[in-house]
């Protein structure tokens, strides 16, 4: 390993904290891989060696895990991952056009990083925000209801160093390394930023309120079976 003594000491201190969360040390492997990404910007050979030594695994065992998961990068990642959802629904609602436009703007294709190390463009699979389609994730923060123009604007603002806020997330997007540290389980103090929920998440609730609809009051329920029978017919 080529880590300097200070880096190594910090890694070891953090790793001990991660391992303490689990009954068995090996369970710490995924968070430790996120942790080495927060230091190196990807899962480096050093990072693999560190995980192997720390958890008493072979290099092959660690590599086998690192290559299985799409969030672990085997080459230096950009400061910002622009992930455009291209699973069926988002793709059809316009995700394909967004990806193509971003690719043209950045001059890179899928899973490629711009020469200045600023952006990695990625086609991502369904990110559980389908009611906000088409969706883009920037360093795994939600950018809802995207268009080709809005996605390019996000990239341009980031390139110019302007603060960029996700639709549902912290006040601004943080770097790939900073976010990787959160994914290792270390809070960054931004959990109280951003909204409770997006507008689509609240539509049913608001409609119910407008119509005076609610669950039955507890205790006012009909006798067992009666209401259920009626409903099922």
């Amino acid at each position, binding site marked *: 390993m080529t880590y300097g003594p200070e880096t190594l000491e910090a890694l070891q201190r953090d790793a001990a904290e991660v391992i303490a969360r689990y009954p*068995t040390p*090996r*369970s710490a492997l995924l*968070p430790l*891989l*996120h942790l080495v990404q927060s230091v190196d910007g990807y899962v480096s050979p050093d990072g693999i060696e560190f995980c192997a030594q720390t958890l008493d695994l072979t290099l092959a065992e660690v590599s*086998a*895990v690192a290559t299985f*998961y799409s*969030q672990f990068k085997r080459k230096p990642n950009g400061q910002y991952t622009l*992930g455009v959802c291209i*699973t*069926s*629904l988002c793709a*059809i*609602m*316009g995700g394909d*056009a*967004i990806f193509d436009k971003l690719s043209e703007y950045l001059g890179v294709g899928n899973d490629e990083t711009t020469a200045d190390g600023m952006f990695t463009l990625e086609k*991502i699979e*369904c990110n*559980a925000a*389908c*009611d906000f*389609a*088409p969706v883009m994730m920037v360093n*795994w*923060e*939600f950018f809802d209801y995207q*268009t*080709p123009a809005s996605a390019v604007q996000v990239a341009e603002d980031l390139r110019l160093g302007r603060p960029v806020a996700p639709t549902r*997330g*912290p006040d601004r997007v943080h770097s790939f390394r900073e*976010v990787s540290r959160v*994914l*290792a*389980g270390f809070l960054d103090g*931004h*959990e*109280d930023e951003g909204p*409770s*929920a997006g*507008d*689509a*998440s609240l539509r*049913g*609730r608001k*409609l*119910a309120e407008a119509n005076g*609809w609610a*669950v*039955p009051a*507890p205790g006012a*329920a*009909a006798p067992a*079976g009666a*209401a*259920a029978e009626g*409903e*099922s017919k």
Partner: protein
Amino acid sequence: MTDTLTPLLTSRWGNPDSWTLQAYLKAGGYEALKKALSQDAADVLNNVKDSGLRGRGGAGFPTGTKWSFLPPPDGGPRYLVVNADESEPGTCKDIPLMMADPHQLIEGAIITSYAIGCHHAFIYLRGEVVHVYRRLLGAVAEAKKAGYLGKDILGSGFDLELTVHAGAGAYICGEETALLDSLEGRRGQPRLKPPFPAVAGLYARPTVVNNVESIASVPWITLNGQEWWKSMGTEKSTGVAIYSLSGHVQQPGQYEAPLGITMRQLIDLAGGIRAGHELKFWMPGGSSTAMFTQEQLDVPLDYDSVVAAGSMLGTRALQVFDDSVCVVRAVSRWMDFYAHESCGKCTPCREGTFWLRSVLRRIEAGRGKPEDMQILEDIPKSIVGKAFCPLGDGAPSSLVSSLKYFRAEYEDHIENGRCPFDPKAAYLFKEVAA
């Protein structure tokens, strides 16, 4: 008669600072926990069992029954693992739940742990939602500080550690045994069952794996009782559930309703189909379930009625596609997903999804051959029922069902050597990529 919509798990979403302990307590949070801890664990379990609550993660297995499968205590550890790996295409309910109301899930996890005798529970969250992870980590820290987690919870003598774990990008980890392997620090690949997790799960110890929405329902059932829960929904699909509408409806979003509401009602609540268009097809439970068309708009969306109509309720991930959408394109893209996400362990799934992807892509691109129709019929038969886990079973569902309703559309692609649809017509925005 229960009201049309019944916000319960979604009832605090959007409240000011709804994710904080202070807001949760103000809205009546952790009262269910106090009630549970004052009862015998067996009574807490039986209340949930008698409520008829069925798993909200897709399979619909009765939650309390799953808990009761744990062998009698042997002095060793038993675990609760909450499946928060929400990844089934179209499914988008657990992520907003945890972002807006993480304490609801935590309270459910504590009550469930108490009921099953677990002292270390886990929430396995997919890694691609960093702000949700922040909210969960923050909420666990708050709950611990306030004495809802840790040693001697609220003076009851009950101890519980809760670890929130972030995955790293793999759809397969939503399958419970793959999730357990992943949580053990391995590649997320499914295990052969039996043994089931109830007998040999995490670290080969008795383990309950439940979906986020199932666990978040537990405080409500504990607080208000199983009779109240059963007064909503249908006889065999009790209670309320979150329905997620996406795609070509006017108002996509989360609509919480008694089980048994119909798609016609939901589309109406969501303001109808996109203006100037008609419904073409929809997915009732995510992309792994058979598609429906206008014909099934009045099928009650409960577990058994949807099965009887030829599909599955799954995660109530209702994806709506109007008449601008090419069904071959939609199915082809879902097959891209399954080919990408197949973990590779079982040959029928790994190779089958690969070849289906290739054939579907060439048909959509106008390079299909007449014999491709037979290939599309044959390959699914070599996958379904021949792999370890449901990924393989679900992968060809959209294809097989689309051939039933839209066979002519595939043949048209092949005969005319082109896709008859303009993808731009389906976009939700007006601007056209230059």
